[in-house]
């Protein structure tokens, strides 16, 4: 009578410490240029080597420019970090998907593409959105740099087992309501701290009906409700996505793996420490109005009122007013991309939507593919041509304006509608204001020049 989470976690405990954490074995480790250099440096100081180099893959994503990737990185510090990553991978024999290579991209986009992300695995990365990989029925979560060092040198971390939560979404999503709206809705109900201490399993018809891409969007943002991670039981959707991916088992091993994966889902009478149930038909296109991802409303609602000082501070920062509608607010920037919504399906949805429409000249729009593979497919499928016809262009892969470590920064005081996952003060650049939404809602703003319910544009 176990949950999928318990099954995976328990199978990876190397040692249980009384009144302390579990020593947990990590199957797959992902690293990038920002949170790994100090870990390598500490290892060097302690005289340690990487224990299992073939259980780590690396890619530079956070810092990289999204134009002219064939040229040296202009920003000196960014270049140094990327070079450090190259150097460390070389010294320690770690597989690197470097800038420009076939599988370069945001670490949480390339893992699934390569087929490295698989059901039943424990996966960690020095990045909170590692939760993305939970979409495959893996236990995946973000860790700090000290833990990156632990995984590199011992393939283990020490953590106390979180409690379990199940969020069930019954019914089907309405047209133009996407996985992003689903998760923004959930966070608005559960709050940004409601998941703290829990590992969340998403289930119910609306979740089952999501594609793998949609499931990744949902699990990606489970961290935004404070949860340690989120996951979804593997099923036929998962298996058909993984079949024939470069790193998935082949032949007899595939059948063996399938048998194991099919045993993973939570037992019917498994007990969760906490449960939430929602109805998919209550969900509309969502958008955030404040400075944390829990401050989301339906796009046709007005901005709420609260007399809490943190809430008031947040509205002041955003320049929005309680009681006013959010639709119609003028927009300066639109960002489509990130590990939340930078996958091929997102670009397909956007391209499909902009057909026959035109970009608004007042809005700067950055469309950034999550990976080289996504970029390639977007070209092959003719999506880029459609986007260009509507006045949009496709940049090169990376985290980009999601956290604005590269040059893709929203200027001070400007408002951006973004498909990424965080609307914190200054997240997209000092003084930048961010509203989170789905790719379709974001592109609607890029077409009209103001916050727009996509359903009104389609009519």
């Amino acid at each position, binding site marked *: 009578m176990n949950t999928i989470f318990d099954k995976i976690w328990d199978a990876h405990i190397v040692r249980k410490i009384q009144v302390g954490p579990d020593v947990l074995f990590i199957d797959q480790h992902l690293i990038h240029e920002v949170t790994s250099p100090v870990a390598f440096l500490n290892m060097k100081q302690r005289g340690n080597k990487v224990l299992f180099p073939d259980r780590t893959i690396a890619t530079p994503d956070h810092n990289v420019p999204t134009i002219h990737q064939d040229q040296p990185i202009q920003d000196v510090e960014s270049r140094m970090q990327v070079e450090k990553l190259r150097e460390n991978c070389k010294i320690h024999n770690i597989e690197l998907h470097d800038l420009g290579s076939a599988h370069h991209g945001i670490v949480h986009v390339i893992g699934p593409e390569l087929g490295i992300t698989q059901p039943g695995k424990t996966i960690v990365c020095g990045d909170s959105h590692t939760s993305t990989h939970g979409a495959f029925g893996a236990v995946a979560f973000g860790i700090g740099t000290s833990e990156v060092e632990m995984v590199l040198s011992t393939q283990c971390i*020490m953590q106390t087992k979180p409690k379990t939560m199940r969020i069930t979404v019954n019914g089907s999503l309405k047209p133009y309501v996407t996985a992003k709206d689903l998760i923004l809705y959930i966070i608005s109900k559960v709050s940004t701290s409601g998941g*703290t201490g829990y590992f969340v399993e998403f289930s119910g018809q609306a979740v089952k009906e999501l594609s793998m891409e949609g499931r990744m969007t949902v699990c990606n943002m489970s961290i935004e409700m404070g949860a340690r991670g989120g996951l979804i039981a593997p099923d036929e959707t998962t298996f058909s996505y993984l079949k024939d991916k470069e790193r998935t088992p082949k032949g007899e091993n595939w059948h063996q793996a399938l048998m194991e994966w099919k045993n993973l889902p939570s037992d019917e009478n498994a007990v969760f420490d906490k449960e939430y149930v929602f109805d998919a038909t209550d969900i509309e296109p969502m958008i955030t109005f404040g400075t944390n991802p829990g401050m989301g409303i339906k796009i046709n609602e007005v901005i709420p009122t609260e007399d809490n000082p943190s809430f008031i501070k947040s509205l002041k920062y955003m320049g929005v007013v309680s009681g006013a509608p959010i639709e119609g607010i003028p927009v300066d920037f639109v960002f489509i991309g990130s590990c939340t919504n930078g996958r091929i399906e997102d670009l397909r949805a956007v391209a499909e939507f902009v057909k026959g429409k035109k970009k608004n000249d007042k809005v700067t729009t950055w469309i950034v593919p999550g990976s080289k593979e996504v970029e390639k497919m977007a070209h092959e499928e003719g999506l880029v041509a459609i986007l260009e016809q509507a006045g949009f262009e496709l940049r090169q892969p990376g985290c980009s304006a999601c956290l604005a470590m590269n040059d893709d920064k929203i200027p001070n005081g400007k408002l951006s509608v973004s498909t990424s996952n965080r609307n914190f003060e200054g997240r997209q650049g000092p003084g930048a204001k961010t509203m989170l939404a789905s790719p379709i809602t974001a592109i609607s703003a890029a077409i009209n020049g103001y916050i727009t319910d996509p359903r009104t544009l389609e009519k």
Partner: protein
Amino acid sequence: MAYDKFNIIIDSAVPMPVENVDTDQIIPARFLKATERKGFGDNLFRDWRYDSENKLIENFPLNDPKYNGKILVGGKNFGSGSSREHAVWAVYDYGFRVVVSSFFADIFKNNCLNIGVLPVTVSESFSLEIFEAIKKNPTTKLEINLPNQTITLLETGKSEAFQINSYKKENLLNGFDDVDYLLNMKEEIIAFSK
């Protein structure tokens, strides 16, 4: 890596009574470009300490000379957001050893314990009392007693117990970290991996 051992700290505190302080505020992303752990303290709460012209925002608590000490008292849901350990490095390197809040985000708390910052979770009412006491007297002292697991407002003697698992407590008292522990069980780990 090695940090100063933790035992009892008696000091004044810096108040930060804002809810949902996220790690992007504690250390903005543009300061994550270092390849060594150096200089993070200078950029702690950078965009709340300085305005867009790089001028000191005087009434921000860290800039206010009346507040001092190794203890940072934050509002509810402190440290949410990114897993960047840089946020805790900034807190430590600035000179804090303790962060007090009525609610911590998970990864932040974990990162604190890994580098020798003690996260102390107090009840909401006690957190308000602490803010009130500091407001009345900015030099009011708090005692953080790790061996006894208590936090005390010395002026009033009001005290509360806090939780920490005994493994992590031992680590902090001795300045050990998890890497040391794990390295000692390498053989066991290799056997497990097979």
